[in-house]
């Protein structure tokens, strides 16, 4: 136990040494947490960054396929010292130099690896990609020109500042994203984590399914015996009570949801192995909620739609209020599913980062070594406690998503009973 604790301690220190490196830099726990829970174009195992394939599309330069190792990753931040076809690697994520600034295409060295290493050794880590607020003039909805502040990321190359674009996101500008000059379809950390999890789950369950064939009529054994109680629990406590005699038809979907979410929740909790926050990314929960939405509404029977549009036994004038509420509910239900899973898992990941971040907050980013080590012990205990709770949350959230989906399908497929 003591040895495990030491290993934890040392790898934690190693992983976050990146932050401690620049002693003069102010540690920003919020930004650090946001960075660690975000998706990335590198897969970090401990302090190392494993490059991943990049698949990028922009209207003006078309498709680009290359490995993120082409950026020449330096240090622990996941910054690349090269630009490729107008793309750069900023803190593990691909950004694109905003077109129209005259930035050269092809492979361009932004700064030398040597300069970066020298700066790190000198105690002043190089931050090639900086943030600043600029004034932007744009026309508002009424056609009046107004000035607003925009936070931009930029870098300096050959004495000139170049603004970076973040990848296009589907939030419509609501959360500071929106459609930019390029789209990122790369096999990111989250995608790789998802593919690994899917592959492991498939391998596991197909071998279990085979065991049911080869060991027919015998008691379950090994992995089969481990999974069977979970499977039977979902079958008997989720599928059968909510779906009635339809349970067999929807069981594979419910099982797929449960094990997909559980697998990803757990995969994200493996310490120092990517810590991919997959189910804590709204893109993933959005897709899962959409699957639920389509399964529910495509299987909705006459009774379900009847209740939605005109609830039987309700006076006509009440329907004016009730019907819109019911119809909004159809969309709200998957949205709550999406937000619940996203918020729970993201919160868990953030709490971990923040607990570890306490070391740098109280230890003044490594300047005060005794306080750093003292806080480290406390924060590691807290983190381990949180990890135990997150393990529970991983199961609970997978279960909650599944049981709610089952109840929605159950309501949509229920036969009329009067």
């Amino acid at each position, binding site marked *: 136990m003591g040895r495990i604790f030491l290993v934890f301690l040392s790898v934690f220190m190693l992983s976050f040494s990146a932050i401690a490196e620049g002693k003069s830099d102010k540690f920003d726990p*919020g*930004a650090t947490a*946001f*960075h660690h*829970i*975000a*998706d990335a174009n590198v897969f970090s195992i401990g302090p190392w960054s494993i490059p991943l394939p990049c698949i990028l599309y922009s209207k003006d330069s078309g498709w680009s396929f290359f490995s993120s190792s082409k950026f020449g990753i330096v240090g622990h931040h996941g910054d690349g010292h090269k630009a490729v076809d107008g793309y750069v690697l900023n803190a593990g*994520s691909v950004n694109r130099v905003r077109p129209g600034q005259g930035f050269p295409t092809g492979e361009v060295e932004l700064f030398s690896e040597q300069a970066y290493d020298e700066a790190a050794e000198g105690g002043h880590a190089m931050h090639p990609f900086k943030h600043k607020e600029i004034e932007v003039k744009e026309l508002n909805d009424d056609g009046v020109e107004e000035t*607003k502040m925009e936070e931009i990321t930029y870098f300096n190359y050959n004495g000139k500042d170049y603004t970076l674009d973040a*990848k296009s*996101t*589907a*939030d419509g*500008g*609501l*959360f*500071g*994203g929106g459609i930019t000059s390029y*789209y*990122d*379809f*790369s096999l*990111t950390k*989250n*995608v790789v984590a*998802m593919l690994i999890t*899917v592959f492991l*789950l*498939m391998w596991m*369950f*197909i071998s*279990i*399914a085979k065991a*049911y*064939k080869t060991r*027919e*009529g015998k008691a379950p054994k090994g992995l089969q015996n481990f999974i*069977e109680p979970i*499977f*039977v629990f979902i*079958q008997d406590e989720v599928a059968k009570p909510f779906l009635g005699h339809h349970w*067999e038809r929807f*069981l*594979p*979907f419910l*099982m*797929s949801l449960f*094990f*997909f979410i559980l697998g990803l929740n757990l995969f994200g909790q493996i310490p120092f192995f990517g810590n991919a926050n997959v189910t*804590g*990314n*709204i*893109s*993933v929960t*959005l*897709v*899962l909620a959409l*699957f639920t939405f389509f399964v529910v509404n495509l299987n909705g029977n006459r009774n379900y739609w009847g209740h939605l549009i005109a609830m039987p036994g309700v006076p006509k004038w009440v329907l004016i209020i009730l019907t819109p509420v019911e119809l909004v509910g159809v969309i709200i239900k998957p949205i709550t599913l999406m937000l619940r899973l*996203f918020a729970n898992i*993201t919160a868990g990941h953030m709490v971990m980062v923040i607990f570890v971040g306490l070391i740098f907050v109280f230890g003044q980013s490594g300047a005060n070594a005794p306080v750093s080590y003292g806080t480290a012990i406390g924060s590691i205990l807290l983190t381990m406690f949180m990890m135990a709770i997150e393990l529970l949350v991983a199961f609970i959230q997978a279960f909650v998503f599944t049981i709610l989906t089952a109840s929605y399908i159950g309501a949509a497929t229920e036969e009329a009973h009067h």
Partner: protein
Amino acid sequence: MINNIIFLSGFEVIKPDFGLIFWTVVAFGIFWFIMSRMAFGPIRDALKKREYDIQTALDESKKARQDMEKMNAENAQILAEAREQRAKILQEAKDTKNSIIKEAKEAAKLEAQKIVNAAQGEIESQKNAAMAEVKASAGNLALEIAEKVIRKELKSNPEQQSFANALASEMKLN
């Protein structure tokens, strides 16, 4: 502007990312498709079959036990009936024996009576015949004696003749 109100510009995870959406659709779609056909479906069917088999086995064993109990009860009844039958047969045999013995006894008695009667009749008739014969012989003898006596007496003495006659008359057959 709205992004100044919701200050989340660094909060990447809340911005739906086209690439991740695409890959999640692909990954979950494939996962759902393959797992339904190769894992969850077959496991569900196998579990259902096993549950059915176990239930059937339990029901069968219950039924077998009930059958066994029923058979045992039947056996006991048959045994009781057999015992009753045996007792009845034995009783009948006893009765038959007794009646046969009784009949035999009566028949024997009757026969014996018959034999006795016949013997008695025979004896009577034999006795009577013998008596008759004796009477006849005695008569003859007496006649002879009397003849002889008479012949002799008569020749000599009338007194003697009367004596002989007296004798002859005294000789009575008992």
